């Protein structure tokens, strides 16, 4: 073997157990210098644990890690970094109040005598790294003022302060716009051109096929196989991941449409969105597509009483209504499955049952007391209906997988038997298997006569669930497409403001 062909990073038979769980069961794979190695698996398959082992946060029970064929032990994240393995977190871990340069060299700021920081050297070095990444901002910029994409660049810049052999990206595109993704991919390709090995973890098939050289699949903590990207396709990968194949194509059978359930006219909210008008009928799914920040979530929040409109009218069942609080919205039959499951949807330390019945706990009473029986009946009903996998209603919801957590949130709002169900980013951070289940569920709900509004940043998702699609750009509703009219091109144009007439 020549020096060049040595793997940058190699794992051999890694086993990691937690009480009652074998999280990793003999995982072996390697990353060559200059290669993008995608790591795929459903939530709970062991990806996060594997990353934590690589970054020195967990110590494996068995197996070994090799860097350039030299056996290493990662004692902690700093140690891992010193040995050349850097993790770019899904949830960024930057000090918001400090400058980009300080963040890049956090913990290892260059020093002068008496421990003073050598600012000139710091800004010089950090500026050099940012330039290598083609960043548009300087090293003195305060991180809190940067966009998420640029914050990610700061994280990546951190990785470049050492001679990184391998960089691990965990769902790096989760909150990026399409344009920002392109920049990120360029940076990743630049890293590989310098001989860095990349481990790329993502749920998004299109990205993995664009970017990776090889794909390794984890399922239930075990390594199910490594495929060469050029020689495989999405079907094969999906089958490996979930042990069956999936149909993600658009197969919408328009149901019976009922009366208009909710109607909005001239709705505005300051600078967030302007003059928005639409209606949703019972039995219909209206999709909202647009870039992050286009005003979609803010419209949903207005309909749910979380954000007061500055102008316009909302009608529910033909009646003009004022919605001042989520309580008002709930009474009018409007439910919102929010964008962020962990921050807005669930109380992670509470049981599955308590989470599901929370909006109506005041009504599930016997005398002045909460009725366990009534609560459990509701929980059982929706657990069965949504096929939620949980050891029992006492289980803290934080212990469930992402897909099952999302189903708890959906169950929570379905059990309110709303007329209008708003679902914001229904499958964010959810594995492929649960994703298609949730899509089928949304279609099924429309069939049962719910008026459904789905907000999504993923085009395949809006296309596969919506009867009509509203395209938003910079707070304006550009156009509502019917199923017959819509095409990927026209959607992309509408949400990029092409042909917008007026410029925001």
């Amino acid at each position, binding site marked *: 073997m020549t020096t060049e062909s040595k793997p940058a990073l190699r794992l051999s038979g890694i086993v990691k157990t937690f*009480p009652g769980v074998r999280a990793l069961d003999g995982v072996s794979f390697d990353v060559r210098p200059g290669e993008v190695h995608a790591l795929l698996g459903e939530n709970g398959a062991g990806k996060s644990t594997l990353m934590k082992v690589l970054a020195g946060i967990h110590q494996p029970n068995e197996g070994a890690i090799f860097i350039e064929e030299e056996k290493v032990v990662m004692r902690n994240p700093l140690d891992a970094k010193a040995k050349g393995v850097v993790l770019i977190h899904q949830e960024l871990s930057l000090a918001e109040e400090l400058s980009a340069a300080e963040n890049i060299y956090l913990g290892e700021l260059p020093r002068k005598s008496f421990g003073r920081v050598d600012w000139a050297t710091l800004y010089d070095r950090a500026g050099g790294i940012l330039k290598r990444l083609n960043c548009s901002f300087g090293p003195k910029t305060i991180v809190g003022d940067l966009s998420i994409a640029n914050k990610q660049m700061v994280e990546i810049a951190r990785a470049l302060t050492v001679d990184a052999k391998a960089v691990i990206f965990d769902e790096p595109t989760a909150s990026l716009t399409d344009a920002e993704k392109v920049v990120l991919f360029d940076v990743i390709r630049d890293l590989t051109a310098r001989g860095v090995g990349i481990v790329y973890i993502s749920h998004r098939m299109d990205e993995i096929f664009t970017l990776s050289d090889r794909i390794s699949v984890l399922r239930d903590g075990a390594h199910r196989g490594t495929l060469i990207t050029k020689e495989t396709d999405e079907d094969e990968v999906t089958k490996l991941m979930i042990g069956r194949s999936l149909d993600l194509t658009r197969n919408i059978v328009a149901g019976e449409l009922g009366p208009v359930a909710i109607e909005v006219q001239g709705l505005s909210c300051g600078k967030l969105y302007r003059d928005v008008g639409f209606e949703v009928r019972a039995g219909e799914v209206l999709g909202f597509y647009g870039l992050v920040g286009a005003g979609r979530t803010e419209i949903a929040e207005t309909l749910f009483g*979380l954000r007061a409109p500055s102008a316009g009218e909302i009608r529910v069942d033909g009646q003009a209504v004022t919605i001042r609080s989520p309580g008002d919205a709930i009474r009018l039959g409007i439910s919102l499955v929010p964008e962020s499951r962990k921050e*807005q*949807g669930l109380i992670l330390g509470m049981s599955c049952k308590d989470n599901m019945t*929370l909006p109506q706990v005041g009504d599930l009473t016997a005398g*002045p*007391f909460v009725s366990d029986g009534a609560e459990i009946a509701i929980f059982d009903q929706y657990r069965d209906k949504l096929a939620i996998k949980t050891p029992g209603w006492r289980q803290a919801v934080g212990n469930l997988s992402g897909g099952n957590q999302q189903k708890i949130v959906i169950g929570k709002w379905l059990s309110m038997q709303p007329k209008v169900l708003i679902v914001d980013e229904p499958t964010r951070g959810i594995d492929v298997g649960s994703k298609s289940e949730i899509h089928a569920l949304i279609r099924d709900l429309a069939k049962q006569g719910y008026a459904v509004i789905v907000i999504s940043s993923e085009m395949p998702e809006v296309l596969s669930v919506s009867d009509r699609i509203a395209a938003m750009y910079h707070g304006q509703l550009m156009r509502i497409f019917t199923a017959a009219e819509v095409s990927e091109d026209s959607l992309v144009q509408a949400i990029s403001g092409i042909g917008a007439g007026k410029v925001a």
Partner: protein
Amino acid sequence: MAALTWSNITQVLAKQGILIAFALFMFGFALANARFLDIDNVLGVVRSSAILGVMALGVTFVVISGNLDLSVGSMMSFSTIVVLDLHDKIGPALAIPAMFALTLCLGALIGFLVGYLRLNSLIVTLGMLSAIHGLTLTWSGGKNMDIADKQGTWFGIFGQDEMLGVPVPILVFVLLAVVLSVLLARTPFGRKVYAVGGNGTAATFSGIPRARIVFCTYLISAFCVACAGLLQASRSLGSQNTVGQGLELEVLAAVILGGASLLGGSGTVFKTVIGVLILGFIQNGLLLVGLEFYVQYVVTWVIIILAVWLDVAAKRGRLWSPIA
């Protein structure tokens, strides 16, 4: 039967740690001094803990909803002084409801500031600690407050009498503990308190009126303080302006010892009662084994730190961890 491994032990500790610690303390002190578990001594400890305990019951609600209340000590002084002063001016039958009303007004003010204006509870109640102290001194003119005719009033029944052989303060403590425990554990309101403390944003997104719930927890806290003030005034029929000084920390210590998380969302009334009793028995035990009174302040602090450490260690599954 599960194997006895470190992780199993930490799981048991996480759930039952406080009871185990309680049993160990009792056992240790009982070995050190035979009088410790004497029924008179036990009743004495519970009785002397009752006022602190009543206050801790209310603060439990505040802490579970994710806030702090550092004003309870100062507020208790206020209640005590006010009820003693009004006793001689308008008679005990009117003084008691008037004192409750005034104390609840203070609670409502805090609840408004923390709940509706969403100001930081640490700052608000720390400020109130000082402001209420000033209010109390203004009311009393800085003098000690005494009931003029201590022989001729029935006002002493709350602090001094017994019913069915049990001192009234203990009865009040037990009764309040039972009622508040049911309110917290069994009613929709209690569930909402946990929800607001567990994740306030998610509670709002579930249609729970977060501000109103927080407001109510401070009303409950103020109500408990008023009860404590009544017991205190009735016991001694006279008081200094600083009678409750420092109690806010002991109250908080009892609530944390009971296992309520300062981040909110966890804890129970029963556990707080255990926390109160542990504090009481530790202080009593230290005296019985012959240590100076002042030592208890240091020992109490050490025990709280140990309790908090074991709590987080149990949650992390190890004694020390670089990440949360």
